[in-house]
């Protein structure tokens, strides 16, 4: 009669309780916002955070970015602790592990520090708001839809993901698999999910391996910026160019060369700057008491317009942008 999974009930009370929202409260000034990205030297996270910090200035508050140089949850935890100690008004976090950062975040919320997850969510009760770049379901399903159109609903595909434990990617992949179950895709087959560990060389090598192992492979979806760039680079310089479709999520700057040389026809991404900005405004709204994170609350995110808090405190930025030859030159990030 020991302690088993079934014998314990970790009672998860929603965190956003107690206070009442006052939608008309003005945005406070002089708020201290701290961005805690997955990893500070990740270019994509940099764009997000810098946009968020810039946005904070718009409402006369200050923002800073701190974080580890390795994408580890344990490193993030020490940062959360010190941020709590520093009495920041809000912590904005892109979680490396939804659960590992939970304890300290709850501790922070107890001290009346608002917590906003962005880009990569934490467990639901460890933050007030999650700014989702796009609905996870939408991202997952559209990636399949896009590549299916490119392949005329026929052929083998593979996924080149980040690490085995990447939360975002795993969520998206589960929706992709679900989408593939639909009859429209009966002639398509997902042969393998490979992991490039968000490492250039490893992703590169995994791409080669996939193409060797599955000679009939027609498409690769890489829902991670490092992966898609590596896959595109390998294919662009190999005999597979033009025969294998690459799609997924990437930044325009990274992918420009491969779109131009025809290796990649299209890929998608949300605007990371908007993501940062929205997160910043959401944090300010929380800290000012405009919202508490309950479903249905509304707040205004500067020139991005009005947003509504959805189920489980989720705020969705909007559908991702699809980049192709025609529009890629209009973006620089």
């Amino acid at each position: 009669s020991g302690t088993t999974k079934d014998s314990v009930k970790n009672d998860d009370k929603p965190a956003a309780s107690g206070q009442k929202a006052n939608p008309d409260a003005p945005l406070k000034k002089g708020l201290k916002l701290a961005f805690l990205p997955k990893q500070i030297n990740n270019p994509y996270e940099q764009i997000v955070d810098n946009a968020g910090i810039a946005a904070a200035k718009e409402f006369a508050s200050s923002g800073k970015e701190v974080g580890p140089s390795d994408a580890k949850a344990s490193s993030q935890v020490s940062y959360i602790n010190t941020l709590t100690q520093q009495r920041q008004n809000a912590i904005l976090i892109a979680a490396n592990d939804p659960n590992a950062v939970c304890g300290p975040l709850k501790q922070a919320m107890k001290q009346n520090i608002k917590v906003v997850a962005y880009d990569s969510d934490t467990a639901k009760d460890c933050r007030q708001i999650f700014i989702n770049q796009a609905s996870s379901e939408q991202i997952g399903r559209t990636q399949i839809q896009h590549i299916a159109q490119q392949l005329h609903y026929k052929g083998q595909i593979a996924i080149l993901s980040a690490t085995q434990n990447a939360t975002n990617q795993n969520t998206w992949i589960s929706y992709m698999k679900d989408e593939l179950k639909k009859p429209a895709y009966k002639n398509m087959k997902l042969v393998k999910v490979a992991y490039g560990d968000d490492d250039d060389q490893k992703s590169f090598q995994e791409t080669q391996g996939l193409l060797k192992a599955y000679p009939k492979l027609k498409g690769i979806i890489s829902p991670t910026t490092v992966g898609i760039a590596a896959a595109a680079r390998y294919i662009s310089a190999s005999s597979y160019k033009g025969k294998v479709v690459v799609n997924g999520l990437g930044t325009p700057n990274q992918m420009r060369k491969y779109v131009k040389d025809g290796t990649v026809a299209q890929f998608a991404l949300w605007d990371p700057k908007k993501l940062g900005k929205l997160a910043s405004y959401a944090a300010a709204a929380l800290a000012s008491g405009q919202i508490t994170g309950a479903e249905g609350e509304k707040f205004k995110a500067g020139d991005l317009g009005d947003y509504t808090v959805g189920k489980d405190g989720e705020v969705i930025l909007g559908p991702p942008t699809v980049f192709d030859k025609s529009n890629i030159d209009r973006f620089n990030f």
Partner: protein
Amino acid sequence: MTTLTKYVRWDTVVTVLLVAVFLAGAGSTDGFADTSNLSAALDDTAEIALIALPMTLLVVAGQVDLSVASMLGLSSALAGALWDAGWTFELIVPVCLLVGAAGGVLNGWLVTRIGLPSLAVTIGTLTLYRGLASVVLGDKAVADFPDAYAKWAAYTRTVPGTFVPYPVALFIVLAVITAVVLHCTGFGRSLFAIGAQEDAAYFAGIRVKRVKIALFAVSGLVASFAGIVYTLRYGSARADNGIGLELTVIASVLLGGVDFDGGKGTLGGAVAGVLLIGLLGNLLTLNDVSNEVQVIVTGLLLIASVLTPRVISAVSARRATSDRPPDQTRIERPSTS
């Protein structure tokens, strides 16, 4: 040589530095000396500190175990998988510890029976154990660990009357035991002998192989225990838990003045090294010093840790005999091979 080198040893320097960092932090930085901050900072070093204990013994004996972080991950992943499969937690812990000890014995066996250098062996098992972790748990993350246990690992619960969280308290007890074993027992003495001159230790009747296997086994055991602590503390079992931690552990131990060539070092120094890296990191973070700078500081400290004693002894040697270059005085020192 002269009094200077006799009394100014690096482990004392590290301890002084540690105290200095603490005082400087308390004086200059709001919140640093708060008990809640100290508890959190200490708790954050819990796994590193725990693993550093057997690592110190290993390094003194001229060995190294690079697979500890992977073993931590494997233990964590295993705990997660078994928990998910409905095992009772009370059973999971001994199983994990057993796996850890077994992994350690494998390391020790490869080192002693096959005669491979421990650096090479444990680079291999570093890959293997991490790989097994991913076999065991795959891309899953298990999170719903029992509160009854998790709360013991959290920094918010401390030993009554102190700011010491329970994992750290456990560490302190173990550290005292390890210090006594290393510095006051025959076993500890034999580790120094093995590290300094293995053949001579063997000829003196010390069971070198057995001692080494035991050390690796303890190292694996403690690493797997640290894996449990990690899992509970972060409330998350994943195959990649603690990745890359081995270098931090080794850096801490070396920073404490334990000689990588074996045969020299103190446990106090190693503990001071661990705490110095932990507290300094916390202090710098509180002062918004970026992570990159912290990494540089760690590196510089590490270099200083080996350079300073040399400089001190060179200076004191030069003082002893004015015109003799320092290296000439060292020439007679037998080199450990």
